């Protein structure tokens, strides 16, 4: 990286941009209440006011501009009383606004906002008798005008600073089609920032190497750019994503959903890897910041050269790329109602969920199924009733169905705020005259499947000691669980250490893992179609639920569970995503992959990675990069769905715990995203340290 980029990185890490921030959020409420606007118009008004209040900031080092000056808090468009009235009896998803989606960036960049405005103007002409449509189209136009006006003010500031290069770019985009790589990056930077400015969050950057490549290709072809200049621009763009992200909401700092999805296939099924794919990997490796978080789509046939390049990022401890296996993901999406063309165009959402950019109003994380809670209830009731394993498994099925139905039914009452500007960025909202909050081509929900290895291990331990060996009495087990193993340490050690475990390619445990996921899929399939016209997608991730489901969290809809029969004490976290139960002695990464390869990913398709930690000592010679790349290829060859491979040094993390001031830039993978270790709360730091104690070397 050259000096300019180094300066930009330091400024972003030091949050220099904070000095430009306005201290107070706008108050627009009295204004819009006086006008008695519809909810749709209120959202348009919010967009306009936020854009107007932004103060253009241009750093002399920047070629791609936009720095947010408005604070994190988004102005309310209703009073609490009005909001109460509007939403009583309805379900609010997380904090409310549409989130965790990826727009159709390719369309917006190539057509420009004015083209979208024309569609909306035509819409206005044609729907004079349809007030709802009219409301939507007129609101969309307000938002488009306000974003273009913001760009114009940036152009004016650029002229004032005599930055004619910038003036030229900002006169073109985002209003008109981007013509160059730089214009496309500028357009994306501004539009992406505006989505956050108006309250959306975890907004992904989609298949960046696909929609951006035509601009770079023509620049290179026409001689407007060489690869070094392209590298510079891209690095600046990546750094810019780290500027305002502390303002974006998330469960922990860094959980901001700024993902990009690289590689994969095109709409004809041919490999879509291009020069920009590789450039993104190289730039991300060198910039070494937590955003953007990279997903790489691969197949069993992906070449080792690309995987080796990707492994260099892992080696740096960035916690990405996360890998998704097209061989598995695409057919699964097609089986569940996605067109082949759309399935081939999937991107990864904020963490791991598969979504179609621009085409879905999907809520891929309506909550989590707690496998351990389901198993715990079934075990207690079943054992008390004197049942054998078959009876217990029947009860597990019932518990799983109950949890799935509860979440799905809760989301039947989902209410989403209108999103006129976000609709402008989607593929079909304007042409169909329908706001995104009213649905799109795909309207599915996703549920995480959390604690699967813990739950399977609990069943395997009961099978082994209660039924096979008959060495543990059911009443003793229940008493030990009730007492959180206090006074039952020998029993706990037996359950935790001597039973068959998921992650060792041991069918005695893995068979329960497979059974649990099949029951989950059955429950989702049995639920059928929601009133929004979507289905329920079962997944294999935990997100933050590996802690929440054991310790509780305010307003959580999922059940909490205490001590469990795999020997886990109350409050101790589950394994994150698809990982062996914490503390279990595991044979190695091959066995982990072979265990989790047994899940039927044609039915479990909401995403959720196998998570493997390797010690950074693995990378001691040149060969090691290629061999880790082979491990990634093995993941795809074994038919697994998704992989998160982390490299970390335990001593470094322990030192960072003690001396955070020395490790400001230490990056770790948390659940579906990477963050700065020192910015995490202690409970998450502890869980990551505990994970790495069992890293493979």
């Amino acid at each position, binding site marked *: 990286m050259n000096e300019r980029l180094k300066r930009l990185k330091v400024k972003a890490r030091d949050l220099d941009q904070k000095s430009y921030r306005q201290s107070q959020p706008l108050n627009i409420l009295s204004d819009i209440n006086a006008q008695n606007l519809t909810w749709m118009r209120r959202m348009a008004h919010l967009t306009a006011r936020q854009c107007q209040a932004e103060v253009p900031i241009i750093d002399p080092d920047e070629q791609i501009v936009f720095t947010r000056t408005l604070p994190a808090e988004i102005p309310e468009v209703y009073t609490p009383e009005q909001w109460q009235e509007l939403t009583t009896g309805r379900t609010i998803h997380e904090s409310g606004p549409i989130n965790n989606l990826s727009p159709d960036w390719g369309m917006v960049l190539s057509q420009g906002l004015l083209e979208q405005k024309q569609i909306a103007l035509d819409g206005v002409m044609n729907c004079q008798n349809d007030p709802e449509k009219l409301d939507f189209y007129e609101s969309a136009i307000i938002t488009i005008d306000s974003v273009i006006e913001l760009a114009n003010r940036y152009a004016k500031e650029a002229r004032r600073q005599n930055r004619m290069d910038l003036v030229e770019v900002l006169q073109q985009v985002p209003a008109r089609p981007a013509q160059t790589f730089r214009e496309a990056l500028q357009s994306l930077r501004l539009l992406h920032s505006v989505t956050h400015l108006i309250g959306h969050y975890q907004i992904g950057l989609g298949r960046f190497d696909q929609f951006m490549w035509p601009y770079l290709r023509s620049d290179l072809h026409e001689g407007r750019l060489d690869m070094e200049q392209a590298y510079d621009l891209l690095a600046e763009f990546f750094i810019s994503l780290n500027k305002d992200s502390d303002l974006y909401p998330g469960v922990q700092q860094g959980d901001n959903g700024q993902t990009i999805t690289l590689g994969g296939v095109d709409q004809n099924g041919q490999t879509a890897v291009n020069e920009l794919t590789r450039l993104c990997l190289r730039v991300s490796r060198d910039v070494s910041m937590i955003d953007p978080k990279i997903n790489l789509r691969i197949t069993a046939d992906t070449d080792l050269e690309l995987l080796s390049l990707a492994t260099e990022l892992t080696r740096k401890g960035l916690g990405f790329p996360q890998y998704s296996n097209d061989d598995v993901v695409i057919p699964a999406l097609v089986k569940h109602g996605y067109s082949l063309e759309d399935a081939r165009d999937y991107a990864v959402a904020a963490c791991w969920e598969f979504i179609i950019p621009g085409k879905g109003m999907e809520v891929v994380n309506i909550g989590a199924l707690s496998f351990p809670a389901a198993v715990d209830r079934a075990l207690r009731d079943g054992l008390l009733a004197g049942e054998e394993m078959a009876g217990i498994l029947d009860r597990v099925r019932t518990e799983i169905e109950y949890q799935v139905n509860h979440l799905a039914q809760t989301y039947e009452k989902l209410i989403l705020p209108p999103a006129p500007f976000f609709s402008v960025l989607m593929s079909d909202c304007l042409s169909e005259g329908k706001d995104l909050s009213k649905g799109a081509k795909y309207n599915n929900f996703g549920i995480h499947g959390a604690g699967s290895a813990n739950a399977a291990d609990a069943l395997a331990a009961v099978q082994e000691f209660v039924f096979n060996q008959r060495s543990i009495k059911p009443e003793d087990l229940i008493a030990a669980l009730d007492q959180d193993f206090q006074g039952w340490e020998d029993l706990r050690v037996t359950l935790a250490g001597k039973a068959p475990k998921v992650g060792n*390619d041991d069918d005695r445990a893995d068979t329960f893992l497979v059974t649990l996921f099949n029951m989950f899929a059955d429950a989702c399939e049995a639920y059928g179609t929601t009133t929004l016209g979507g289905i329920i997608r079962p997944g294999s991730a935990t997100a933050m639920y590996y802690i929440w489901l054991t310790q509780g969290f305010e307003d959580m809809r999922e059940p909490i569970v205490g001590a469990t029969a795999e020997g886990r004490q109350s409050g101790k976290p589950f394994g994150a995503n698809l990982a062996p139960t914490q503390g279990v002695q595991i*044979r*190695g*990464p*091959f*066995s982990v*992959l*072979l265990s989790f390869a047994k899940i039927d990913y044609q039915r479990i398709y909401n995403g959720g990675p196998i998570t493997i930690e390797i010690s950074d000592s*693995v990378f*001691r*010679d040149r*060969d*090691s990069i290629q*061999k*880790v790349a*082979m*491990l990634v*290829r*093995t993941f795809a*060859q*074994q038919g697994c769905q998704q992989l998160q491979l982390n490299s970390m040094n335990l001593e470094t993390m322990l030192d960072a715990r003690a001396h955070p001031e020395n490790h400001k830039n230490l990056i770790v993978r948390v659940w579906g995203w990477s963050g700065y270790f020192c910015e995490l709360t202690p409970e998450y730091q502890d869980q990551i340290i505990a994970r790495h104690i069992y890293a*493979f070397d």
Partner: protein
Amino acid sequence: MRRGLIFDIKEFAIHDGPGIRTTVFLKGCPLACMWCHNPEGQSATPQILRNPGGERLVGEYITSDDLAGRLNRQAKIFKQNGGGVTFSGGEPLMQSAFIAEVITLLDDIHVLLDTCGYGSSDDFRHLLKKVDLVYYDLKLMDPELHQKFTGRDNSLILENLTVLSQSGVPFVIRVPLIPTITDTTENLSRIANRIQNLPGLVKVDLLPYNQSAGAKYEAAGMRWQPDYDEKKPVTANLKIFTDLGINVGVK
């Protein structure tokens, strides 16, 4: 069916041969090298390792059937990635009949034998018929120094080197670089001269001294007493080998 004594099975072993592999560590070794970093591999019986964090039994008897079964589950991974199984130790030749039986039960898997060469020549010859590649350690060419630092003299090892080079099995010579002991011009020159022109020689790997070699001695109830300066940097004089046209690298 035979059973063997192992002290570890390490998956995704990436420094033990081509591709990605699983390495089986056999317990028991006729040598006791002063720099040995796996002291728990020396004794041919199970033993307790005592760490501040607790105790762990090291050494597990396993039947050839069970071991081969476990390895065969990974056969596809090995085949697709140019990898295989490595038998290391300890010293695998001490359990050569067991290993031979395991290999017979393997499902067409590439096998690498990582040996110090100290064992019965007949056993070695027999085993060589079943393996695809050999990692062969040469430490010291001087018999007295060899006796002093490993506990045995090197005549059998040098005899078996001849057996190896006549077997047709390709092999890599591995030399641990112990400061001032093996990492001397004289020793490396004698090794180079001995192996020059040996049929089957693929290359020489020089293995720089591992400064954490003494880490496990206390836990194994043994004393760590290196009679050399651990901190001294290794010289790794590659030229000694390249001058004789020998392919050499540092690992």
